[in-house]
């Protein structure tokens, strides 16, 4: 066969002499510069069994399930939450009626930071970017009329994850549901909070301890629950490249594995319930490569480095969300198209669950109409596009396979660098990640990447339609969701009623039990459930631990 090199010289070069390459960045969002063409020689030697294997089989490059979307489509899980528990409950019911297959709760910032709605620091923030949940009483309203054994519920909650999960389980218990039948996910990924989203409360080490409490307690008590969703989404949104997102997320995943091993847990006891969450951004093929590489790296590391024996421990099951950061406030309807392309990449990458962003999210929280279009986008891909007929349909594409290898190689280099930072400890990934957080390594890497991207946009090297090219003089107005300022008052009243009507003695004892567990290093989960049942507030629970663990402040850098 004629060599690519010869084609480049004889044909491509001549072509570009006549018609020069366009002056835009021929580089992926991770700064990988692909060739103009890929051929069999670019992926040689290609060991099919080792690199890809079959769907549902090690190393799962082609998908974690044997029959993938032919049997079960990805879960269409739209993230929702705003205002009061009543308002969000109403939105949930509408989404379920529209054909959504799982719930996903967005909490407001006070809840995410472990403050009750009536705390002074909550002022102005209650119900703004999610729903406010300060006690079991809010949880009761939030899931009113929803059968917890029939839906699966994902909750985006991190530092206060134990407390919020405790409230959900307390609700299930009160309503007579069997914990063994409950399905869902708590995000519970504190490492990426330190790295990117910054909703942390306690220092890294006790924060990881709280996460490992769920690893230890979860499989026995709520066996179908994913007690962690190791998240690259926020890392990417903070400005990381696809490669950094992949590398930092997997490093976080390995760090939790090592922390659980340090606790003395058996790997195959907890690893099958570790789940993931990735961003899906604009660079179509790079995103597909990222999902495929993620599954391959996770499987090989879990099997070969950590010695997991249960195939379920090797499977990287993931949720995906289209890239909020890629949405533009200019010409917002264009975002519908961006979301469709990104969602298609997630599906071709073999995601197990997907949230599609609404076109108005660069302006505010989504309106109901906008959220419906986003859900319909998934349904059109699922039912009309035909991409679900065949599993991993892009496998064997010279470019996609080359790019999958390239993304894997670059991600592995980062993971090695992180493990180097943890050298000399028995758990180099865990302590590498913690040191990287404390010395600002991740934050610096991400800030550098986001600044580089911004400069590319400013110089016009990267085109963003409607932002630095193809601008419209006249902007289209879109309807905006506004949050009723009454939320703060409604929440404060409910909290006051909870505090008035509950059994104070039971609250005191439950909080003391939690404190003791934290001080002595026992598992905190049973105490969170008991405190929730006693109607202790979120703020009260988190304050107990603030006193034991202290609070964390990150190094400030630009």
């Amino acid at each position, binding site marked *: 066969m004629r060599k690519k090199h010869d084609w480049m010289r004889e044909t491509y070069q001549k072509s570009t002499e006549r018609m020069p390459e366009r002056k835009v960045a021929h580089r992926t969002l991770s700064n990988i510069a692909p060739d103009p063409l890929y051929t069999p020689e670019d992926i040689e030697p290609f060991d099919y069994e080792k690199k890809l294997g079959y769907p549902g089989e090690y190393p799962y490059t082609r998908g974690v399930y044997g029959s993938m979307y032919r049997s079960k489509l990805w879960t269409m899980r739209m993230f929702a939450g705003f205002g009061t528990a009543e308002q969000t409950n109403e939105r949930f019911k509408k989404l379920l009626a529209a054909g959504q297959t799982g719930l996903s709760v967005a909490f407001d910032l006070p809840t995410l930071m472990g403050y009750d709605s009536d705390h002074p620091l909550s002022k102005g923030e209650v119900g703004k970017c999610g729903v406010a949940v300060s006690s079991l009483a809010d949880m009761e309203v939030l899931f009113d009329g929803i059968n917890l054994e029939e839906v699966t519920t994902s909750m985006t909650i991190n530092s206060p994850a134990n407390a919020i999960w405790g409230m959900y389980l307390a609700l299930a218990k009160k309503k007579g549901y069997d914990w063994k039948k409950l399905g869902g996910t708590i995000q519970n990924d504190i490492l990426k909070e330190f790295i990117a989203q910054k909703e942390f409360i306690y220092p890294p080490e006790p924060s990881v301890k709280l996460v490992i409490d769920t690893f230890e307690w979860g499989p026995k008590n709520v066996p179908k629950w994913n007690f962690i969703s190791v998240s690259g989404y926020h890392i990417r*949104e903070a400005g990381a490249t696809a490669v950094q997102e992949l590398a930092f997320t997997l490093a976080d995943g390995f760090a939790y594995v090592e922390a659980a091993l340090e606790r003395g847990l058996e790997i195959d006891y907890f690893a099958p319930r570790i789940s993931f969450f990735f961003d899906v951004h604009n660079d179509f093929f790079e995103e597909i490569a990222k999902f495929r590489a993620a599954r391959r790296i996770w499987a090989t590391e879990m099997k070969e480095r950590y010695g997991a024996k249960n195939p379920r421990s090797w499977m990287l099951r993931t949720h995906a969300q289209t890239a909020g950061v890629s949405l533009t406030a200019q010409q917002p309807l264009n975002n519908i198209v961006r979301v469709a392309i990104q969602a298609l990449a997630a599906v071709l990458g073999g995601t197990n669950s997907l949230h599609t962003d609404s076109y108005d999210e*660069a302006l*505010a*929280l989504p309106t109901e109409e906008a959220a419906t279009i986003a859900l319909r986008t998934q349904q059109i891909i699922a039912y009309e596009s035909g991409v679900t007929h065949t599993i991993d349909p892009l496998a064997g594409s010279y470019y996609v396979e080359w790019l999958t290898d390239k993304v894997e190689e670059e991600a592995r280099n980062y993971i090695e660098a992180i493990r180097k930072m943890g050298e000399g400890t028995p758990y180099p990934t865990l302590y590498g990640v913690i040191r990287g957080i404390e010395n600002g390594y991740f934050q610096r890497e991400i800030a550098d990447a986001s*600044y580089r991207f*911004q400069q590319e946009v400013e110089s016009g090297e990267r085109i963003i339609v409607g932002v630095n090219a193809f601008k419209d003089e006249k902007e289209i107005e879109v309807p905006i969701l506004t949050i009723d300022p009454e939320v703060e008052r409604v929440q404060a009243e409910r909290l006051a009623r909870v505090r008035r009507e509950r059994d104070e003695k039971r609250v005191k004892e439950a909080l003391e039990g939690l404190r003791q567990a934290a001080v002595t290093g026992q598992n905190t989960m049973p105490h969170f459930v008991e405190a929730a049942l006693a109607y202790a507030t979120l703020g009260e629970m988190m304050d107990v631990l603030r006193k034991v663990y202290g609070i964390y402040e990150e190094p400030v850098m*630009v």
Partner: protein
Amino acid sequence: MDRKIRVLIAKPGLDGHDRGAKVVARALRDAGMEVIYTGLRQTPEMIVSAALQEDVDAIGLSILSGAHMHYFSEVKRLLDEQGASDILLFGGGIIPDEDVPKLLEMGVAAVFGPGTLTQDIVDFLKREVPKKWAKAGL
């Protein structure tokens, strides 16, 4: 013209999304300004006190949580109360168009939404801050 523009970039409230704040801080620094970045979780009191202490010409608030009306009005109120109304207050983040006129009326000098080129913020400060100096006879 060797006087350098001094800017405080601040993240008020509980929101931890600091990508925009950091990008803007770097861009202003690269444009030759003195930039102080507060870090996360600042109360309006902390922001105004930092601004006075650092003797800044302008404060930029970055808010993506939807709590912008509250934080801008608090910072503005405290600036007025401290006799520091001459400090230019601007900001950006996820701010619906319909709130922008209300913020401008409140005395916020400019609001930069998603997709703003950092050069536009640089140009704005290089235009407005010297006007303010001229007024103060500096």
